[in-house]
């Protein structure tokens, strides 16, 4: 229990610069990574496949099995490619950055309005 309940609980609020930087970083994490992922995916689909996977294209392979393994190998190839994986990780962690950097920005914006109108 707080021995001195009259002490105001002062939590430091980040400033305008920090919020602007946060918005830009999260916007970049979600927006700037997409074209690089697309470029890497297109490049990955055009590279030659190894000989060990020739059985997928064989006529005796069942259609469903070939499709499933084709998708799995495609995902594996793309994720192993750093040109795709690095932007993907940045993009996926965008939500974390969003909550860490600008989770409280709603209150900050309201505070801005209050200061403008007062």
């Amino acid at each position: 229990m707080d021995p001195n309940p009259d002490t105001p609980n002062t939590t430091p609020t980040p400033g305008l610069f920090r919020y602007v930087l946060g918005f830009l970083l999260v916007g970049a994490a979600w927006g700037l990574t997409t074209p690089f992922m697309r470029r890497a995916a297109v490049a990955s689909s055009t590279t030659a496949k190894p000989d060990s996977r020739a059985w997928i294209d064989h006529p005796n392979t069942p259609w469903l099995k070939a499709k499933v393994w084709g998708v799995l190998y495609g995902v594996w190839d793309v994720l192993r490619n750093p040109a795709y994986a690095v932007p993907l990780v940045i993009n996926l962690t965008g939500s974390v950055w969003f909550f860490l950097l600008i989770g409280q920005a709603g209150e900050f914006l309201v505070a801005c309005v209050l200061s403008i109108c007062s």
Partner: protein
Amino acid sequence: MCGWMADSRALELSLTVPITNSLAFLFTVLGEWWAEKKVITKGMFHDISLGLVLCSDLRWMLIRFNCRYVGWYGSRPGRYRPLRAFQEHLKDSNQAWHRIASFSSIYNEVAFFPSYTVIITLAFLYQLNKGFSPFLVCVSSTYAHLLKKSSCFITRVSFPVMAR
């Protein structure tokens, strides 16, 4: 403090998601140029500009230069009054003519602008004719917020520094 801050909608306001989404879209345009040297067309640039103007500046300009109240049923000059109070006032006035006229700017005696609804509907029809997609991408999240929280301070929040 302004009287309209008593309106509870102000406390529910959160523009973080639409701002971040709009920034993400602009960063995507930048990334397309960086990664693949793609440049947006003139038409798309116009669409984006139109979307940004409609969603951020229009209501702000209307409020700042012409009227204190900009709503779905028209704009009127004078002191801002929340929509609920405005409707109560109309009910109290108990005159059919006022009820009809309140849905246009005739009620204000001076016609400044057509209602925001009319402007945005015309813009949407124009975009629908052209293919719509870039405009929609840019606008959708912000416009959804405007639909939900159509009160006059929305756009002042978008540019707190400029509003000073």
